[in-house]
């Protein structure tokens, strides 16, 4: 992750549903090389913001840009083509397809070969190599020919994220990637993600997370939302040293790492 240009940004974005204001004047930007965590209590507008960032929702006010282009409401397919991928908190897999085939779907779509009606996808050595590469990064190399539905919950999660990475996105947005994973494994997953991002050439990661220890340890910046507004947009050290912010977002319970940063 090297370039420092702005990859994705929102400028004074607002989203209202009738009289209910979900987002109010949110301005943020993510540059290459950053891992930005979006935090906040439920109902703070995180999901809405993420949906705006990933082109699912059109903001009622303001602009959202990806590499300079307006991406308001363009939808997941066009977004993937432009270079942004997203993985959800709820694990999405293709139950009857193997790990190799799942990752293959992303690779085939990313190389623009969707309308190739005649070549054999199984016999394609280049595709196979890429599949093995991606699977290897996520520790799934041994399960390439297993059906997705037979994987463990953790492996399914990894596969879900791996297939998003296989799109070779410049920015990847991960919705609570460690939810449902035991605490011991959480750090392992984060390290895998960051490592994968580096190897896959992903330039920036946006994370939606509740686990403040992870957020504190791995983020380059933390964006805190409350009531649809940006409460704070700071590096972890600054973030955790401000008691008001900590109280608002984290409440009383602050973990070891966070305390050590304060």
């Amino acid at each position, binding site marked *: 992750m090297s370039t420092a240009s702005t990859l994705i940004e929102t400028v004074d974005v607002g989203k209202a549903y009738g009289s209910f204001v979900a987002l109010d004047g949110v301005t943020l930007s993510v540059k290459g090389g950053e891992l930005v965590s979006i935090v906040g209590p439920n109902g703070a507008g995180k999901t809405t913001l993420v949906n705006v960032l990933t082109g699912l929702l059109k903001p009622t006010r303001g602009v959202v840009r990806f590499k300079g282009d307006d991406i308001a409401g363009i*939808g*997941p*397919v066009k977004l*993937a*083509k432009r270079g942004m*991928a*997203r*993985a959800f908190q709820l694990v*999405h*897999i*293709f*139950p*009857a*397809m*193997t790990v190799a*085939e*799942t990752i*293959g*779907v*992303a690779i*085939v*779509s*990313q190389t623009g*070969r*969707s*309308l*190739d*009606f*005649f*070549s*054999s*996808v*199984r016999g394609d050595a280049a595709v196979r190599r890429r599949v093995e590469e991606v699977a290897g990064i996520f520790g799934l190399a041994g399960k390439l020919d297993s*059906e997705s539905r037979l994987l463990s919950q953790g492996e399914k999660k990894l596969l*879900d994220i791996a*297939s*998003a990475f*296989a*799109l070779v996105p410049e920015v990847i947005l991960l919705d609570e990637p460690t939810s449902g994973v035991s605490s011991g494994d959480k750090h392992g997953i984060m390290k895998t993600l960051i490592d994968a991002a580096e190897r896959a050439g992903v330039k920036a990661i946006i994370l939606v997370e509740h686990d403040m220890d992870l957020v504190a340890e791995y983020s380059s910046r933390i964006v805190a939302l409350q009531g649809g507004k940006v409460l704070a947009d700071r590096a972890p050290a600054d973030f955790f040293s401000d008691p008001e912010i900590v109280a608002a977002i984290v409440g009383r319970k602050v973990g070891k790492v966070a305390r050590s940063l304060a």
Partner: protein
Amino acid sequence: MSGAVPQRRGLLLAFVAVAIVVLAAFPHIAATYYVTLVLPAFAYAIALLGFNLLFGTTGLLSFGHALFVAIGAYCAAVLSSRVGVKSLELILLASSVAAVVAALPVALLSVRYVRIFFGILTLAFGMLFHSFLFKFYDLTGGDTGIRVLRPTILGMDFKELDKTAFLIGPFYYACLLLAVVLGVVMWRVVHSPFGLHLAAIRENPIKAEYLGVRVRRFRLLAFLISAFYCAIGGVILAVNTGQADPELAYWTHSGELVFMTVLGGFASFFGPVVGAFTFVFLKSELMGLTQYWRFCLGATLAVIVIVFPRGLMGLAKDASRKAAKR
């Protein structure tokens, strides 16, 4: 669809090769009656290969695909008996293009919906065409339909052969060739990057979108290809019976298409082919045995749905898996 283990694949292809050889020899070794049954079996095998691209591979269940079979049949009828075009090749081409053209608006409207709504919408289109065929007597021949005259194959009219001899002779081999060629093409399509994306759409359309797959567009394409195949099946059926009749478009005929596919196994490439042959022969035998053959067929379908949802090919795969373990 997950691929079979290499040995199983080899075994499968060996079976297919043997089947083709047997089919090629069939007119010389079997009784005429049975040979004439193979023709509708070819027709349905081709139609179902197309239908299953939409159902088994892409996950959309249409209850109106008999519409395209009927279009194929009526095109063959109109071309051969009213327009004077006798070339089988031209008839096949024109019919399948007509079906794709007709499929376009149907598909555009239908792929916006899934599951039961897709089924009902396709049923509606099928019945719309049926009532058009049935009621507009002057155009479509009403409930009698339109005659289909014998086509020429590669320019030859085989005048010296009577109807049956033509059907179990040159026409039989033309159909066998068609089935093999179209089968190979469909195999490539299913195993291509496009086919992989269709399977992704079936498994999880939301995730497929997030991996960059244009879900609606691909459903549309799968629909068009399925219409193409169904029309060719319709042409074969019409030439075989010598008549294009409106019942070909009735919703119960669409139901039979689904029946055959599930009977053979919708999750397997050759399932539809096995289903087509099994159904045609089973129906013929049952009709000879009892006047209550519909009940028997219905009961068979019920048993398949409840006990063997993966059909005959599913049973075969289970059996071979158990054998491999020993």
